[in-house]
């Protein structure tokens, strides 16, 4: 393949990564924005979503499409429920203290991961995509005969990958509408701005916290259900999404939702493109180092406002 089509392929793969990453990081960002806690177990909620998707699809065992749609609803709901229970049982009792929450969520990380290892096992397991037509893509070029369209070998994507990108966009828009247009979103924003004053005005802050924690985990699980037909479910799969989500949330500005989406696009696309042309390890080294330096020298992130 020549450079041009190769770049386009890399960009397409990057867009899929970016779509999933945007959903996962959005979950982390909402939790941080509203509750001011860092959820280290976020990657494990992602993993749990993928594993539950496999479980739902296997239990139903019918047509892949039915299993997938069921998983798309059941897995995020279950994961959100588990997260809400965890919030009630653990986080609420340490009063959302920043340090202790981090330690507690590290504990939750190992509990979820190792319980999955004991029940689901160490193997990676696939979920069949509901539809997976291969779509060849055309490439346009100025050749000897002027402008020409041809179909380079290997330049193709699948209908499922395009669906993932569209689905992520729909979910993000829906989330945006919920936060800005509904009563629930209003309560969330009130809690985010000043939880004590919100409480004084009758906002059930405790319940808002639980719901937000569940919503954050559910978003991660949703991203995982979407990705699991492309990437198999495995009990250690939560590690990379966690780090990448951290990176995205930091670059975007802690707690800034538009910043999170922009950063997810930036990181996802560049991760896809850099990994195609350079060594993936080197790409990761540069990315993590840059993030650390962004935090050091521009702690408010790209879109965030300075905290007082």
């Amino acid at each position, binding site marked *: 393949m020549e450079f041009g089509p190769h770049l386009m392929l890399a960009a397409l793969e990057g867009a899929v990564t970016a779509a999933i990453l945007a959903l996962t990081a959005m979950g982390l960002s909402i939790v941080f924005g509203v509750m001011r806690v*860092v959820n280290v177990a976020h990657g494990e909620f992602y993993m749990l979503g993928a594993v539950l998707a496999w479980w739902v699809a296997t239990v139903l065992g019918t047509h892949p499409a039915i299993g997938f749609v069921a998983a798309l609803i059941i897995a995020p709901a279950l994961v959100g429920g588990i997260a809400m229970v965890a919030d009630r049982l653990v986080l609420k009792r340490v009063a959302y203290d920043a340090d202790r929450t*981090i330690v*507690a969520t*590290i504990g939750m990380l190992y*509990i979820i991961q190792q319980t999955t*290892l004991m029940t689901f096992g160490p193997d990676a397991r696939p979920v069949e995509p509901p539809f997976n037509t291969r779509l060849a893509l055309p490439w346009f070029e100025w050749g000897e005969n002027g402008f020409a369209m041809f179909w380079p070998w290997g330049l193709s994507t699948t209908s499922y990958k395009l669906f993932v990108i569209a689905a992520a966009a729909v979910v993000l828009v829906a989330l945006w509408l919920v936060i800005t247009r509904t009563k629930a979103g209003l309560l969330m924003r009130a809690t985010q701005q000043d939880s004590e004053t919100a409480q004084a005005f009758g906002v059930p802050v405790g319940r808002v916290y639980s719901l937000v924690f569940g919503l954050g985990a559910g978003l991660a699980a949703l991203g995982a259900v979407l990705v699991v037909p492309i990437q198999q479910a495995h009990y250690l799969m939560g590690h990379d999404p966690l780090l990448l989500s951290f990176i995205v949330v930091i670059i975007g500005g802690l707690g800034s939702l538009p910043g999170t989406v922009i950063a997810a696009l930036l990181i996802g696309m560049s991760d896809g493109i850099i990994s195609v042309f350079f060594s993936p390890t080197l790409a990761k080294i540069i990315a993590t180092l840059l*993030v650390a330096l962004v935090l050091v020298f521009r702690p408010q992130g790209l879109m965030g406002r300075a905290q007082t």
Partner: protein
Amino acid sequence: MKDAAKSNALHFGVLATLLVLFFVLPPYHAGNLSRIMVLAIYAMGFNLVFGYTGLLSLGHAMFFAAGMYGFGLTANLAGWPVVLAFATGIVCAAALAAVVAALALRTAGVSFMIVTLMFAQTAYLVVLYFGEYTRGDEGFVVQKAARMIGEIDLTTDTARFFAAYILFAICFQGLARVIQSRFGRTLVAIRENEERTRMLGYDAQRHKLYAMILSGAVSGVAGAAYAMLFGYVGATFASVQYSIFPLLWVLLGGAGTTIGPLIGVLFMFYLIDFSSSFTNAYMLIAGVALVLLTLFAPHGLAGLVRRKVFAWLP
């Protein structure tokens, strides 16, 4: 007895008990004891910044790994004499700590944790990237020649125990002295109220930097000792898990106590040893322990003893 005398008695008592245990216990447990002491050095290094200065670093594995690779690579590949290689390991860890701390200390709180985590992740990836020398995840075995000090063969159980014991004793007593010194008192003051400490005229930033460098150096001692005594160097020791472990040990034993780290490592080591005999998901125990600790005993075992029984506990 005065409190200081009591602490001294306690520290010498701990060291004497360890020595007696080596001769009393069966060889398997005596061997474990060497490993526990080396890991306890690491935990003590972590405790200096976490327990005494109040900085939660999630990246100490990079200092441990710097000590380990600083020793392992120079001793194995370059064939440097053991003592020189060991010193190189410590210097590497201290230098890395100086650079990382100078940058990371510009942030505080949650950002500090994430920055240290990111630097540690970078260090881990760097180890993987230079797989040609470090052999990545697989790691390499330190040659026998690099595990001899003069005529002493550190691969034998007795020599290994005494090497670990001497290093542990130096770090244990040394850090206990540091904590009782003016410098240590200032660190505690920073932990309790940084603003007030600064207002009293102390350079809090400089103190935190020195604490990080000392902590990094002690972690490097542990890393180099681990490579020298157990003969294996691998990328696992640079991974996030090894940044979490010292946090777990110190929390379990009691943050901000001199004997907490040793108690934590001892407890956790046997907990994992015991649970891995019937399940391969032994990290589940670590997770449950962390959650229960944050809920019910945020001050750890030694912290509990200090609050309920001996208020003088150092």
